[in-house]
């Protein structure tokens, strides 16, 4: 097998199907590492990684930090709240200051779409996009694909429905792009106001009825309503959203088959998914979190490998 075709992980858009396969296969071996009594390998001991979070995050940030530490990398953390960004420094200046302290890789979450790509053009470090606004969240899509593959055995031909706030979700876009690249069948489902008008041009099915979506799919990925990104009202009330798009045990019990339920977190229990569903054997929500560390280790390992000594 060959190396990754890219030097940064900016989005699923830039990855080839072979890259995705390589990351998922490598993650499988890292998952084994995470189940050893000593869960640490020395591979990245000469790499320093900066985690730059210009937007709040709990899961992703912890997951990246743990992945970095499990690989023995040196880690520095930075959050916008306590930084000189507040004092008027530009993104490139902030990052260049950090890089001058000999940092090799940057994991960045930023509220502006394209921030990671912009940074990759201006600084000499491997950039990993940990979410850029409503644009992409590539490691989430990779860990979702890994979790589906683990459960179903194969991604090709798998029927995956993504339900909820498609319009504001970077998870939705990255998932759609990834699943299409590796031959899965994808449907998006949500209120007409929360599904982008041109979604079908990505080759996905568009549905507005939750019942139809879950009857069709093998896997349902329930997304949170992103109130923080909504400038206007997209639906009349939470109660109405819950009635139309909230997944309940009644939905799952009425199906003739068993489907896998996913959620990228954070869960709004009782809105897009009830507590019974979230805690049922159908849900693989905590598996997703566990797999997230292994997938991020694979991404870090494969990108670090491209920074050969002598030209990094």
């Amino acid at each position, binding site marked *: 097998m*060959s190396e990754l075709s890219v030097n940064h992980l900016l989005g699923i858009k830039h990855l080839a199907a072979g890259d995705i396969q390589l990351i998922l296969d*490598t993650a499988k071996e890292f998952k*084994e590492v995470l189940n050893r*009594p*000593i869960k640490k*390998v*020395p591979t990245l001991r000469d790499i320093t990684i900066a985690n730059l979070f210009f937007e709040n995050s709990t899961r992703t940030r912890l997951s990246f930090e743990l992945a970095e530490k499990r690989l023995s990398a040196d880690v520095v953390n930075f959050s916008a709240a306590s930084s000189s960004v507040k004092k008027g420094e530009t993104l490139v200046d902030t990052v260049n200051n950090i890089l001058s302290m000999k940092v090799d890789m940057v994991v960045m979450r930023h509220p502006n779409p394209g921030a990671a790509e912009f940074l990759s053009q201006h600084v000499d470090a491997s950039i990993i996009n940990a979410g850029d606004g409503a644009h992409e969240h590539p490691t989430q899509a990779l860990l979702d694909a890994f979790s589906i593959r683990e459960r179903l055995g194969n991604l090709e031909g798998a029927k995956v429905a993504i339900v909820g706030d498609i319009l504001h979700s970077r998870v939705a876009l990255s998932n759609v792009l990834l699943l299409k690249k590796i031959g899965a069948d994808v449907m998006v489902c949500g209120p007409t106001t929360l599904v982008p008008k041109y979604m079908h041009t990505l080759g996905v099915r568009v549905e507005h009825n939750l019942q139809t979506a879950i009857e069709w799919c093998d896997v349902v990925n329930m997304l949170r309503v992103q109130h923080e990104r909504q400038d206007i009202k997209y639906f009349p009330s939470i109660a109405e959203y819950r009635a139309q798009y909230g997944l309940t045990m009644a939905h799952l019990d009425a199906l003739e088959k068993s489907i896998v339920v996913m959620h990228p977190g954070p869960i709004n229990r009782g809105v897009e998914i009830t507590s019974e569903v979230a805690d049922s054997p159908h849900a693989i929500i905590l598996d997703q979190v566990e797999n997230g560390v292994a997938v991020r280790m694979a991404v870090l*390992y494969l990108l670090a490998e491209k920074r*050969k*000594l002598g030209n990094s």
Partner: protein
Amino acid sequence: MSKREIIDSGELNIALNRLCCKLVENHGDFTNSILIGLQPRGGQVLSRLVKLLEEEYGVSSIRTGLLDITFYRDDFRRRPGHLQPNKTKIEHLVEDQKVVFIDDVLYTGRSVRAAMDAILSYGRPLKMELLTLIDRRFSRDLPIQPDYKGRQVDSIASQRVEVLWEEVDGRDAVLLTEPAS
């Protein structure tokens, strides 16, 4: 590039039998021993040895495992191309056990150094030993020597020593590959 057969299937079989005898001599019924094949090529030696030990030497239920050393290598980012990890399968506790690493060719010793590092992630073995089917003499980069060796081979750095197995390659043999002059 030319390939020359330096050990044939008969000689290979004798070497494997001799290795089995030595293992039985030191490990008895293998109660506290675990044989660990080093990925990717040690697994073949391991399965052949286990087959012989069970069929010819009456040893039963030998505990085995496979260890991949990719994440412990000392040439990560220092060599061109991609280092693809292989499967690791260690289902027995190594704590206080006698671990025997098994590989096909011992060359620089760097893989064995990595293996010693890697196995410690699973616990602290009582003892570590090294078995190699082929020992390329005078080519070590590290102070590592095998406890059990099938055959010794003299070769130069530009040559390659390759072990073929009937199950995979259609015949048992050891080849010496000469570079194109």
